[in-house]
């Protein structure tokens, strides 16, 4: 049992990384079912449970920043419990979903708490510390591995009920609070971009993008296309004006360095 739990937990660690990095999709339930079934000695059952869970999570993809219940934990814990407790695949879903939701909340926390590390990354960038930048990325994946390892190992070793109680211990106000803050945090990233890009005479375009997206629900692709048209129009207008006035000594200080 210990050996099985260890092997499944290692696979969960790798799959957890694959969900964000690598993206070979070995983390999907249809693959996880085969691997977990093979470790637990029941490939056929693993395939069937994995296939069932795959269909459940089919639409659960990270679109527009929204995070669905965690597909890695759903697939792995679901298959493991179905085989270990000899349950139907559909019952396994009921066991797997609460874990998958709790794990996704924890991932939200991880993404929130990884934010402060970015100021260290800024320092590394300033100092041209290439190793440092690489290490921050390795650290991120290391944390993911350890997290998925523990979160898979414990429920399989302790049994579902004991693990469920641990999940319930976390105060909801804290989890909710972190979730809310996580949703707001992209604002900081945009503010930092604005700090370097914002010029008063271009503020109108920021407003335009916001209004089109908010009221007309224009998707970002269309937004960029519209902005491109405006930029092109602006370009032809400027060019005409520059050509009609006297030649402004090739754009004031631009040299092409050749």
């Amino acid at each position, binding site marked *: 049992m210990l050996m099985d739990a260890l092997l499944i937990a290692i696979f969960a660690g790798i799959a957890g990384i694959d969900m964000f990095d690598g*993206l*070979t*999709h070995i983390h*999907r339930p*249809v693959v996880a079912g*085969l691997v977990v079934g093979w470790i637990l000695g029941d*490939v*056929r059952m693993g*395939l*069937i449970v*994995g*296939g069932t869970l795959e269909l459940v999570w*089919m*639409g659960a993809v990270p679109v*527009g*920043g929204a995070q669905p219940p965690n597909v890695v934990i759903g697939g792995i814990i679901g298959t493991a419990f179905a085989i270990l407790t000899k349950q139907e695949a559909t019952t396994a879903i009921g066991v797997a979903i609460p874990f998958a939701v709790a794990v996704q909340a924890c991932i939200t926390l991880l993404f*929130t*708490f*990884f*934010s*402060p590390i*970015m100021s260290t*990354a*800024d320092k590394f*960038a300033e100092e*041209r510390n290439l190793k440092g930048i*690489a290490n921050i*990325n390795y*650290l*991120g994946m290391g944390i993911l591995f350890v997290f998925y390892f523990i979160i898979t190992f414990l429920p399989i070793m302790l049994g579902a009920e004991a693990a469920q109680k641990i999940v319930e211990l976390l105060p909801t106000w*804290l989890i909710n*609070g*972190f979730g*809310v*803050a996580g*949703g*707001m945090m*992209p*604002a*900081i990233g*945009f*503010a*930092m*971009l604005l*700090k*370097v*890009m914002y010029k008063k005479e*271009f503020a109108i*375009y920021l407003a*335009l993008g916001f209004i*089109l997206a908010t009221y007309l629900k224009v998707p*970002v*692709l269309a937004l960029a296309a519209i*902005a491109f048209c*405006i930029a092109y129009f602006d*370009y032809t207008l400027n*060019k005409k004006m520059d050509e009609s006035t006297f030649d402004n000594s090739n754009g004031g200080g*631009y040299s*092409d360095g*050749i």
Partner: protein
Amino acid sequence: MEEVIAMEYNELDSQYEDRSTPKVITKKDINKMAFRSFFLQASFNYERMQACGWLYGMIPALEKIHKNEKDLSKSMKMHMEFFNVHPFLVTFVQGIVTAMEENKEDLDTIRGIKVALMGPLGGIGDALFWFTLLPIAASIGASLALEGSVLGPIIFLLLFNIVHFGLRFTLGHYAYKMGVNAISKLQAGTKYVTKGSLILGLTVIGGLIASYVNFKIPYIIDTGKTTIAIQTDVLDKIMPNLLPLVFTLFMFYLLKKGKTPITLIMITLAIGILGSILGVL
């Protein structure tokens, strides 16, 4: 007069010191970057999203292009700014940006193009991978697996990854060539390109604020006789996405006042937790 000086300073700030443009990028470098692009989201976080992983992917090119230490540091700092693109199409941006870096384009222009590409590629990537390839590959794989066939997972992985790897390792080369060609054509009009990329970039950011920043007050006032939902009855009536906009501008204001990003994160966390305890958020 002061304005002119300020502008000139700004211009220098956004340019590389070493403006020589030898061609140093090889096919091997593009492949190296494609390999590194697997780790785009390794240090994902809500503040900068993929920035640090993106920089990690760009390092092979930046290291070769910027022999001037100040330039390398300038470039790396710029690439640590907020970045979020569809993880399957990132090599496309890598190719274009590499061509621009190699040509020592103005940093404002590179930034503008980078930002302008984020959103559109996101839409294309979602449509291509999440709404098309994954459902097709997964349903074929799952139906075989349900019959107990080992071929299910194998066919799923093959279908998905042939497209995935194919795109990841060809887009970079394609985009780099495209970037090099486009740049030589646009060379004459750097001034215009910078202005155009600012228009493009700021419009997209405006849209991203509306769609990515999630800030709602689901609190409902119950006076006994009537109930007033703060978000839907009040705030949305004034303007939908009012809170995301105000909050982003507030963060922008604090940054301009010299507050660090860490302070902003702490403020955001405090608002989230406090709001949650009070039951407002």
